[in-house]
């Protein structure tokens, strides 16, 4: 395994040793040396050369190849969350770049292994993906490429409707079937008066009322389901092979989700370690300029955009610095003057320890929420921008760190995508599927939503509804298999609406 040149193998040895001394804890790392075309190909498959066939990988490949051919961009490194951790090096890269990439990869690999959000990812994904590929190819042979591919397209169109927290929830093994006896509340009475105060007729009437109420509660699903893919897998009228394909795609969606949840941290951590290892150990004098060129290219910012590499590494460095000084906790937080907070130093020396802890338990949302301080936002020149109707351009709106943080969190929460749940699978008692969009101030893109709903309908088989809002006004988008309707649904006690509100409470948003 691995096909490094002796020189690269020696460097790998050196990087591995360094990583160990710094306390990075990784799976074994295997580097594969590939040329640009192979790299583009592997990258197009999301890092898994034996993935199932699908046109979108071809699309990705075309984009990568073209932008490489036209000299617009090239991939430097590609690393797979797997045990052993597989990483690809581009053969044509210079030695300085290879060193940097190796060090960078060790950062990622440590992150994959230790960050809590990756704890439930499949570490034998290389094999699993190849297995998925074989299964899907078999279905294609049996049922036809077009048929299977169309089904995949449909599922991919909703593969963001998963519950990223579900791998962490321990569920009750058995659902209560609700057949246990009902305790009928009695009016309080002394024993000898009970017969008069709670006469049998009254108790009987109460019992009836409660049973009716319970029958009304027999809504399905009981709790709104966030994992729409799972729900369809369990309850949609699918054929065997379709169930299998859906399960495969769902598994892959869950595998990739943590990488989306930790983009800033993961890249920040990798940059932190490549810069530490490179600057302190690996760079020779004649390589300094090359290294700086590449490093600054990685960390460059553009107006109107956040560079996750930059934001991530700066946050880690800031945390390290603060914990080294002891600039945390009540005493520090109570300092009102920003200069005092900057100068505060009790020599705690806890920086390294803290960042290792942070990389273990945080994700981008909690990372940004907890560690962006007023001083950090100021030093990093962060700002919020918005569209100015009057001038017709995007303008800087504010530099207040709370606003910056709120905006960042908004875009990171649920990957910056709308939350959509199944609230009723037997809507109108006709087996229609009722989805509910947890509207948070921003409308859906309605044209897209229509096409997507169409895909859901194709899976569900019966009419499907999506309750959402347009500029705050409730709307119901319906596709019955033939045509769409888009209705205003103010005021009426739609079942979806009531459940929707319950879900709002549950979601805590």
């Amino acid at each position, binding site marked *: 395994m691995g096909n490094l040149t002796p020189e690269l193998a020696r460097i790998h040895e050196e990087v591995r040793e360094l990583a160990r001394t710094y306390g990075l804890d990784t799976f074994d790392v295997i580097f594969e040396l590939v040329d640009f075309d192979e790299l583009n*190909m592997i990258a197009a498959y*999301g890092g898994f050369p034996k993935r199932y*066939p*699908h*046109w*979108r*990988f*071809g*699309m990705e*490949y075309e984009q990568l190849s*073209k*932008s490489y051919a*036209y000299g*617009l*961009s*090239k*991939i*430097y*490194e*590609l*690393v797979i969350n797997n045990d052993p951790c597989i990483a690809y090096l581009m053969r044509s890269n210079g030695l300085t770049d290879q060193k940097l990439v190796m060090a960078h990869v060790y950062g990622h690999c440590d992150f994959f292994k230790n960050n809590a959000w990756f704890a439930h990812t499949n570490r034998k994904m290389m094999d699993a993906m190849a297995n998925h590929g074989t299964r899907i190819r078999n279905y294609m042979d049996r049922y036809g490429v*077009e048929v299977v591919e*169309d089904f995949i*397209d449909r599922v991919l*169109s909703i593969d963001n409707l998963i519950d990223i927290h579900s791998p962490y929830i321990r569920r009750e093994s058995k659902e209560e079937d609700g057949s246990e006896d009902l305790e009928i509340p009695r009016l309080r009475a002394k024993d000898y008066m009970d017969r008069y105060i709670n006469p049998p007729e009254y108790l009987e009437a109460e019992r009836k009322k409660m049973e009716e109420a319970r029958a009304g509660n027999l809504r399905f699903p009981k709790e709104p389901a966030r994992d729409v893919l799972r729900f369809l897998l369990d309850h949609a009228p699918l054929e065997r092979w379709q169930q299998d394909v859906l399960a495969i795609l769902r598994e892959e969606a869950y595998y990739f989700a943590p*990488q*989306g949840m930790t*983009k800033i941290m993961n890249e920040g951590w*990798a940059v932190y370690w490549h810069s530490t290892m490179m600057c302190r150990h690996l760079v020779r004098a004649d390589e300094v300029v090359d290294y700086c060129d590449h490093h600054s290219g*990685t960390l460059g910012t*553009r*107006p*109107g*955009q*956040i560079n996750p590499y930059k934001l991530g590494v700066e946050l880690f460095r800031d945390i390290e610095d603060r914990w080294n000084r002891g600039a945390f906790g009540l005493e520090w937080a109570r300092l009102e003057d920003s200069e005092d907070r900057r100068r505060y130093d009790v020599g705690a020396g806890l920086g390294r320890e803290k960042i290792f802890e942070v990389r273990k338990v945080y994700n*981008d949302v909690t990372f940004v929420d907890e560690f962006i301080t007023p001083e950090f936002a100021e030093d990093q*020149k*962060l*700002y919020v*921008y*918005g*569209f100015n109707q009057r001038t017709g*351009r*995007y*303008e*800087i*709106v*504010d530099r207040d760190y709370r606003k910056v943080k709120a*905006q960042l969190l908004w*875009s990171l929460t649920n990957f*910056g*995508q*709308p939350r959509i749940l199944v609230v009723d699978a037997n809507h109108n008692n006709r087996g229609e599927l009722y989805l509910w969009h947890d509207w948070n101030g*921003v*409308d859906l*893109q309605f044209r*897209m939503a229509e*096409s*997507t709903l169409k*895909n859901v309908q194709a899976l569900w088989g019966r009419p499907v509804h999506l309750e959402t809002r347009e500029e705050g006004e409730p709307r119901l988008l319906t596709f019955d298999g033939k045509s769409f309707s888009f209705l205003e649904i103010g005021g009426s006690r739609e079942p979806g609406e009531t459940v929707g509100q319950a879900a709002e409470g549950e979601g805590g948003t």
Partner: protein
Amino acid sequence: MVRRIDTDHTRFREIVRGRIKKNLKKFVSSGEMIGKRGDRYVSIPIPQIQLPKFRFGKNPKGGVGQGEGEKGDAVDGQENGSGEAGDAEGRHVLEVEVGLDELAEILGEELELPRIEPKGRKILSSLGGRWKGIRNVGPQSLKHFKRTFRQALKRQISAGTYDPENPVIIPIPEDRKFKSRKEEMIPQANAVIIYMMDVSGSMGKEQKEIVRIEAFWLDTWLRSQYRNLEVEYIVHDAVAHLVDRETFFHLRESGGTKISSAFELCDRLIEQKYSPLEWNIYPFHFSDGDNWSSRDSEKCVRLLKERILPCVNQFGYGQVKSAYGSGQFKKDLDAALGDDERVVTSDIPDRDGILASIKDFLGKGR
């Protein structure tokens, strides 16, 4: 062996071309690759298919950026800065700069644009020529020794008279090869683009932005085809003015719309500055399709037919869709001049339509 990716790639191309899976055709859009030229970022078109998903519409909230600037300063660059976090794997991509020539080449390749034949006399000039051809006859002084010996070697090997132990090669007269001059022709032609745009109230910010992007690509392509390219800008509402580039893209007037005013000015400009004998002339007019009156539209057609078209390589009319535009002008032009191949009209419904429209304009190779 066929690589897996080639199968997937072919499939993707076929979907884009509309050969298979026609249900996906409507999700094909022109994506972009961002290249950097100097300080500016340019986007390079590339087809992509986006499967529908539940997504947010335009986020009016804006995003978070990093850098200098005061409250109220414009943020250039990408507008959807903090869009959604991708789930792309740990990939690490660097961007590189592209030259203008390369951009033109990329565009030409992407859209399969024909090279332009300059009109009129083939105004070609020889650039001295270079020694890059080989001929079988020629003067001794131009004999190409290497090629001659190579030919002789080939002949001896095939005749079986070549002995590797004793490699003697003797050319005979038929083996002789001679260098030859290849004349390099370079177009000596000049070209001028005359952009005209309706800046009356109905052309909004977005419409102008579309025109700006479109003009950038037209410039880039034509510049790669002609040695010397001039650009003129005319804005008009009810009256037309010759303006500079900056004004052209930012001016906003509120008056009515009289397209003929621009055509008149364009005609005068050609008469005064750009003799059709020396210049390849490309007038482009952009508006949302509204005109003052049908009488004025008739006047426009007359102007085009009698004055402008005889002088130009091609006249392009791009109709940018706006909330107010009726789109009538394109219909009028098509009705009156639809069969004249010097006239190209094109609808630009939105940004995604820019590419198709560039192809409309440049696809004829005129």
